C-alpha cells in the first residue's frame, strides 16, 4: 500500500513516515502544500494523510482540488483544528476521515487500514486465499497454520495482491502501490520480488499455485490446486 503524507511539522512527519514504513507502507512525504498537491495529482496512493494548516497551499484547497479532478483516493485529515466547524469543513471538502492532533500512531495506522479495506472492499482484516491467510492487522502470513516470515517489501507486495485477490494485477499497478517516489528499483524489481515471494510461500510447484503469471498482463493471486 502506498501512502502520501502532507505534514509541515518535521518531527511529526518523520515519526509518521517511520511508523508507516514499519507497517509496510510505501510512503511519500511532503512538508508543503504545493509539493503535496503535486504528489497527489501525479501519483497513485491508497491513502493520503493531510494536515490542514500547510505552507503555500492549505490542506482544504488540496482536498477540494483533488475532488474536483475526480480523484477518489481516501483522505485522512490529521489536524490540530478540533472545532466542530473545522471537522465539518474538512469532511464536506471531501475528507474520508478526520483525526485531531495529538493522536496515537496506532490509531492513525488503524484508520489507514480501515480506509484501504474500504477501498478494496475487504470488510474483514483477514484475507484467505486457499490455505494462505494474510492478517492485515498483525501483518502476519500463515500457510497451513505455519507462519511465513516475509520482509517488509515482500509483505507489502503480498498484501497488495491479497487485497486484489482474484484480479489480474499489472506490474505498473504493483509499482504504483508498493513503491514510493524515491524507490530507485530496476525495471525487473517487481519480478524479482514476486520470485522471492513464491519461494517463501512454499517454493516450487506449490507456490506457483498462489501467484500465477498471466503472460503480457501481470500477476494473479488465486488458489488453484495442481
Amino acid at each position, binding site marked *: 500500500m502506498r501512502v502520501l503524507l502532507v505534514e509541515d511539522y518535521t518531527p511529526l512527519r518523520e*515519526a*509518521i513516515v517511520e*511508523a508507516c514504513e514499519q507497517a509496510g507502507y510505501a510512503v511519500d512525504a511532503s512538508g508543503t502544500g504545493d509539493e503535496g498537491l503535486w504528489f497527489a495529482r501525479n501519483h497513485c496512493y491508497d491513502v493520503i494523510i493531510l494536515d490542514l494548516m500547510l505552507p503555500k497551499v492549505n490542506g482544504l484547497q488540496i482536498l477540494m482540488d483533488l475532488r474536483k479532478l475526480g480523484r477518489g483516493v481516501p483522505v485522512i485529515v490529521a489536524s490540530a483544528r478540533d472545532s466542530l466547524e473545522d471537522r465539518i469543513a474538512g469532511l464536506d471538502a471531501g475528507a474520508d476521515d478526520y483525526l485531531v492532533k495529538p493522536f496515537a*500512531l496506532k490509531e492513525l495506522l488503524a484508520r489507514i487500514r480501515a480506509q484501504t479495506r474500504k477501498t478494496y472492499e475487504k470488510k474483514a482484516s483477514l484475507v484467505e486465499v486457499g490455505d494462505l491467510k494474510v492478517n492485515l492487522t498483525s501483518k502476519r502470513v500463515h500457510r497451513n497454520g505455519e507462519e511465513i516470515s516475509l520482509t517488509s517489501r515482500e509483505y507489502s507486495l503480498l498484501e497488495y495482491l491479497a487485497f486484489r485477490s482474484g484480479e489480474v494485477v499489472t506490474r505498473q499497478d504493483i509499482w504504483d502501490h508498493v513503491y514510493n517516489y524515491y524507490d530507485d528499483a530496476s525495471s525487473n524489481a517487481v519480478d524479482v520480488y514476486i520470485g522471492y515471494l513464491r519461494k517463501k510461500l512454499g517454493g516450487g510447484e506449490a507456490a506457483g499455485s498462489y501467484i500465477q503469471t498471466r503472460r503480457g498482463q501481470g500477476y494473479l493471486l488465486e488458489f488453484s490446486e495442481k
Partner: protein
Amino acid sequence: MRRPSIKRRLTMGIGILMMLIMLVGSFAIYDTTRDSLYGQLDDTLKTSLALQATEVEIVGNVLLNDWLEDLKNDPFRSRREYVSVWDLSTGEIVKSPALGRLDLPKLPGDPANIMIETVRLTDGTKLRAAGIQLLPTLDGEGEVDRVKLLVPEDHPQLMVFALETKAVDQALNRLLVVLAIVLLASVLISFLAGNFLIETSLKPIANLEERLEKIEADDAHGLFEMPKTFPLELTGLAEKYRDLLLRISKVRLRERDFSANAAHELRTPLAGILATLEQTLLMDRSPEEYRKRLNAALGITEGMRTLVDRLMWLSKLQNRTVKILSAEVNVNALIEERFAILEPKIESRNLIVQRISEGEDLTVISDHSLLSIIIANLLQNAVSHSEEGTIIRIEVSSKRGGKVVISNEVKDRKLPDMERIFEPFYTEDEAHSDAGHSGIGLALCKAVEAVLDLRLEVHGEHDGLFVSSIYFPEV
C-alpha cells in the same frame, strides 16, 4: 423592577394630553355658553326693568304701580316675572303675584349701573335679579289745577325685577352632559387610536427583534439588511446596532482564530512528542538511538515552553499585570546584544547588516526586559524574513526623543498584510509551527507598546521593503 414602556408612555401621554385639551375646550365652551345665556337673560332683565320702571307713576297725589295691573292682566307674565318695588320714603312694598309671601333682596342699582345678581328665594327658587333706584314719573298734567301733585323726589322707589334661571340652567346642564360624553368618547378614541398608531409604529422594532434572533452568534454574514420601509427614526439606531454586531463578530472571529491557532501551535508539537516517543518505545533500540530520540522530544518540548512563555507574556501584557521597572536603557547596546544572538543565522543567510547612528548612543528611560522583547522580535523578523543575501538596515537616532528604524527586503518581495500583522498568530502562511515562527512576536511587540511610553509602527514600501520603527517620546 418594571421596565418603562414606550407604548405605555405614549398611550398614556396621548390620552392625558387629549383629556386636558378636551377639558379646557369643554370648559371654554361651557363658560362661553353660560355667559351668553346669562347675558341674554340679563339683557331681558335690563329691558324689562327699564320698561317696568316707567310704570311707577304719580297721578295727582296718588302713587300708582301700573306694572302690577299689567302683570295681573297677563297670567303668563304674572307667573314668570318676580317684581318688588319699595317706596323708600314710606317703606311700603309692592310685590308681583309670583312672589306671594316671598321677598326679593334689595338691589340698589342706578339707571346708569343696574345691579344684577343671582339670588335664591327662601323656597329654593333660583332667580336672576336686577335692581335700580328710581323716581316715579309724573302723569295727568291736565289735572294740575284740580289736584295737588305729589313731588317725585319725595318718593324715591327701589325696583327689583327677577326671572327664573331654570331654563338657562337646564340648557347648561344638558350642555354639560353632552360635553362630558364628548370628552370621555374623545379620550377613549384617542387612547385606542394612539395605541393603534404606536403599535404600528413600533412594529419595525419587533421585526428587528425577529431579525436579530435569526442571526447566528458566529455568523458575520448573517447581519440583517435594512428594509426600505424601515422608519427613519430607527435607522440610525439599527445601523449603529448592526455596526456593533459586525465589530463583535470580528472580535469573536479573531478570538476563535486565536484559540484555533493556539490549539494548533500546541497540539502539533504535542503530536510530535507523542509520535516520537511512541516510535521510540515501539522496539528495543541502542542507548545512542534512545538518546537521539529523547533529545528530539526534548527539543520539541523546549519549543512548546517558549511558545507558552510568549503566550503568558501576551496575556499578562494585555491584562496589564506586568510590573514595569523603568531604568536607563542604552538602545544601541541592546540592539548589539540581540544581534550577537542572531549572528549565526545572519551568516548562514548571507545577510549584510548596515548600522547607521545619528548623534550619540540612544539612551531612554524604559523597562529593559520589555524593550528587549520589541527589539529582539523586530530584529529576528528582519533576519528570518529577509531575502537571502540582502541588506538589513538599522538606523538609530537620539534626536527628538530618539527612534530606531529597521528595514529589510522581504522574501519574493511579498509584503505581509499590514492590517493584520499585529494579530496574534498572523503569518503569511497558515502553517508556522515548523518554521520556528508562531506569529506571536509582533502581537507581543504591540502589547508591549501599549504599556511602555513609545510608539511602534510598521509599513511596507513598493519594492518589498518592510520597515518597522520605534519612536521614543521627547523627555
